[in-house]
């Protein structure tokens, strides 16, 4: 039973346009959410996070939106750049959970076209 789902395995976006990556979750107890970015042959790197008490967090070109009623979050990248081509993972954290720490989605591969 996947608690965190990224339903789009891949996404192709023109350079300069907006990229929107989506993530759905099933557990309303998740405390906060993170996005990680992964290049081939490298480990994931932390990108941005959002607490469940907020509905938006912004960091430069990256904005994460959280819709708790829909159990949905999205990552917006504006404008998209070639270096944004990577796999993006959504992850969720249960409060005071000591076993699983982070629950990860399967990832979405973002391709930025020139």
């Amino acid at each position, binding site marked *: 039973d996947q608690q965190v789902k990224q339903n789009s395995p891949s996404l192709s976006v023109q350079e300069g346009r907006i990229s929107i990556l989506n993530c759905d979750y099933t557990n309303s107890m998740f405390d906060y959410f993170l996005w990680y970015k992964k290049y081939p042959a490298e480990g994931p790197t932390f990108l941005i996070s959002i607490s469940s008490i907020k509905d938006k967090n912004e960091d430069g070109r990256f904005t994460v939106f959280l819709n708790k009623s829909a159990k949905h979050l999205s990552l917006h990248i504006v404008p998209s750049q070639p270096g944004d081509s990577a796999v993006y993972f959504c992850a969720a954290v249960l*409060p005071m959970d000591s076993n699983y720490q*982070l629950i*990860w989605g*399967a990832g979405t591969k973002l391709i930025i076209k020139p």
Partner: protein
Amino acid sequence: DAGITQSPRYKITETGRQVTLMCHQTWSHSYMFWYRQDLGHGLRLIYYSAAADITDKGEVPDGYVVSRSKTENFPLTLESATRSQTSVYFCASSEASPSSYNSPLHFGNGTRLTVT
């Protein structure tokens, strides 16, 4: 260089063999983790450690053993490798529990393990 390093980067082994994947971090982070990544799955936690000599199971611990005698090292051993353990393995560390806000994980570059 500060960071987290995994070795080897690539490993091919035979079914039934014991193999150890190494992980070393220079930040003196308390928490360390082992994940595996398989196609169609997110990262799945194998084992984690909150401090030296403290380890605990994650989501998929069967067939794996860990130890943490020193803060900076967290080796992962497959006692008798099986084909289902063919995967990419990532080691990670964090300063505090990832349940703490603003304590993201820092990952190594992974070890690609193939069991034939």
